């Protein structure tokens, strides 16, 4: 029997999700969406997926929230009344969506007799790698190709974002609007939180091998800290042509790729780790990835190079 807590949580998620969808003002919709993300993290905890809960909170809600808030701040002036949409089409779309939901719900209500799971085989071989966290095992041992490709996706998406800069500004500074008021709470936070945040980020990555956490979550926290500092105007946004920035972006993928290729020479197989060295190598990958992910996420949020934003 489902607990009252779960039922309440699900109802809240749905209500907040619907609120975010139907809210009149885009700004409110985004604020509500951030709350929605946090509620979702709770759901992940209830589903015994703490790694995902952390990721959802850090990236799905946190960094995405920053991104959207930044966007809505820029869009304010154009937040005109939405064009009246054709209600008959809306009703039809609503009916179709309901049908899709119903067919999915039908599947949920009739689960397979014998639940399928790769958990036993994951655990069976996890010992060889020396990792304690099965999710990290899947990410960096069994399905490391996915993870590697996904890093490429992240970097490529950043190039894609940068590509939207006007020709003359390529390599210039992204125009992040620093918070205008000096000595505000934000400045205070930007001075005090980052040291703690950076510690948390590093800790998350460090325990990631054995406990919930890892490069993604740690990187997201680092990104959030850096953005906070930049928004407060305490640190300058680096120009996208900066050599250090570029190196920071790629160091993770490069190390990952290099260790993968190293596997060819040492074990004969791409992305295989030599016996006994799996854990240190994975930690090396994760360490560099944490940096790269942090920098990449932050650069995603600050956007393409633009003319200085003057308010």
């Amino acid at each position, binding site marked *: 029997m489902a607990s009252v807590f779960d039922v309440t949580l699900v109802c809240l998620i749905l209500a907040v999700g619907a609120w975010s969808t139907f809210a009149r003002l885009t700004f409110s919709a985004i604020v509500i969406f951030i709350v929605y993300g946090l509620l979702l993290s709770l759901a992940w905890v209830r589903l015994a997926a703490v790694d995902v809960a952390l990721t959802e909170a850090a990236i799905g809600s946190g960094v995405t929230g920053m991104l959207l808030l930044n966007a809505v701040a820029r869009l304010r002036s154009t937040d005109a009344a939405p064009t009246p949409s054709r209600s008959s*089409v*809306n009703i*039809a*779309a609503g009916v*179709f969506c309901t049908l*899709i939901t119903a067919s999915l719900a039908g599947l949920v209500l009739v689960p397979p007799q014998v639940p399928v799971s790769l958990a036993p085989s994951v655990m069976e071989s996890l010992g060889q790698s020396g990792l304690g966290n099965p999710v990290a095992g899947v990410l960096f041992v069994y399905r490391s190709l996915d993870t590697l490709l996904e890093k490429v996706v992240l970097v490529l998406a950043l190039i894609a974002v940068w590509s939207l800069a006007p020709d003359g500004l390529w390599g210039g500074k992204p125009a992040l609007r620093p918070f205008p008021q000096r000595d505000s709470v934000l400045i205070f936070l930007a001075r005090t939180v980052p040291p703690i945040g950076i510690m948390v980020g590093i800790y998350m990555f460090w325990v990631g091998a054995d406990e919930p956490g890892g490069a993604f979550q740690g990187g997201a926290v680092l990104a959030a800290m850096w953005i906070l500092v930049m928004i407060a105007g305490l640190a300058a946004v680096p120009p996208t042509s900066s050599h250090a920035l570029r190196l920071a972006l790629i160091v993770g993928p490069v190390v990952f790729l290099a260790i993968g290729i190293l596997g060819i020479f040492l074990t004969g197989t791409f992305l295989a780790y030599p016996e006994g060295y799996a854990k240190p190598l994975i930690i090396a990958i994760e360490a560099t990835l944490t940096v790269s992910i942090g920098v990449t996420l932050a650069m995603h949020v600050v956007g393409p190079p633009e003319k200085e934003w003057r308010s």
Partner: protein
Amino acid sequence: MTLGEVLLVATLAVPLVTLVLALSSGSHRRTTILLVLAAIPALLTALFAESGTTVVLPQALLSLVLSLDLPGRLLLGAAALLWIATGAYAVLSRRGRENDNPFPIWWLATMTGSFGVFIVADLVGFYLFFTLVSLSAYWLVVDDGAPPAKRAGAVYVSFALLSEAFLLLAFVLLAVATRNDSFLIRDAVAAISTSPLRDPAMAFLVLGFGIKIGLVPFHVWMPLTYASASIPVAAVLSGATVKAGVIGLIRFLPFGVPLPGWGETLTALGFVSAFYGVLIGITQTNPRTILAYSSVSQMGLIAAVLGMGLATGNSITPAAAAFYAMFHILAKGGLFLAIGVAQKTRHRTEWTVLLPAAVVVLGFGGFPMTGGAIAKYAIKSPLGDGDVAMLAMVSAAASTLLMLHFLRCLRASRSHETRTTSAAEQSFIWLAIVVAVVALPWALYPAVIQASAHDALSFDALWKATWPVLIGVLLFGVLGRAPRILPMIPPGDIIVLQSWAWSGAKALGDATERIDEYLRRWSIAGSLLLVVTLALIGSFYVGR
């Protein structure tokens, strides 16, 4: 390789190599003469290669199978003559425009296709050359660049594509019906008469080739095209390229086995065209348009002959039809040149054009001793002795009428021209063709029909050949005396429906555009995505 095989390959290879030369050569002054020379191997093949010579080209050349048979040989030879003659004519008349690059290229391409269809023996090869001859000719039609030529080109290419489409379907059906991996036309034709796919295949064949030879109501492109293309182009189009359809019918219809139903259909279609062409033709005043309608009529006659052969299983039909078509290649091509020559001839020497033209013209009615007479005599056997033979005689009378009308209009058009350019060389070409038109059919008759030409000179035969001509002359006299009683019909007659069809198509296009705009709205496309998803789920439950 025997000489015959070498010649057979050279028939296509030489024009193709010339084509490449013309494409790559910077100076075109030298390449123009190649227009003439490139057709010579085809003539040599027709003269010296034996029927039955077969060459299978390697895979790298599409595994084409080239093969020479009697109908192919007749048509190839006559077409080669015409291409040589008109090539020379074109070179002369285009002096000073040698650097007009596209013309020689399309000329050579069309010529290659025109020769190819006569000697190729496999399905895909036939389709390839048929396409080549049909589509390349588009550029010859629009070469002049004037608005009527553009319009004619558009109509021409529309019908050409339509005919391609029908033929593609027909050929695929034939290939499927053949079952084994042979793509030989011979095997396909053998298989089709017993295949369940016979009827659709026959329908598509008749449609596809019917468009090519201008069977009514697919004839509308002919008057437009022949009237607006340049003289040499009109000559090869009306003489040589249109025979791609004739050889197609000869090759692909299963003769030898009586195939009633289809035979009668084709005969009926043919005679409708034969008379329709004359009826509309006599209302025209432009000699080129008249010749075009005469082509509609003549091709209808050939279709009727083939139809009768199909219905009766008469195995002489292919050779007889090809024989008649051979006559038509030279006669019709020649008359177009005559129009060109006439326009440039001085008034006092006009008889040098009109007199030979009269000889050719009377041939269309089968007047004794003309080339047309023996050609008409050759198709008697497939037509039989019954009502159909009578119809053929009437059509001969009608043709005479039409062609006399042509002669008159030719003269009339001539008198308006005040040009005095010497056209001695062109006249020579034209006269050479006239000689061929008269002499060749008589010379070749015994070999083709396996009978002596003397039969055609018997009194009975002579009389039968003469009276339709006399009737034609009589009718011409009556019509000529009468004040203008004939209605004015625009060239292309039912092409006037085009504007109606056009507005219909335009409305359809407008509607499509509106629908597209609607479908590409975000909310519509999104909803459709869900519809497709649900439909797909539903479809998985069907047919389980």
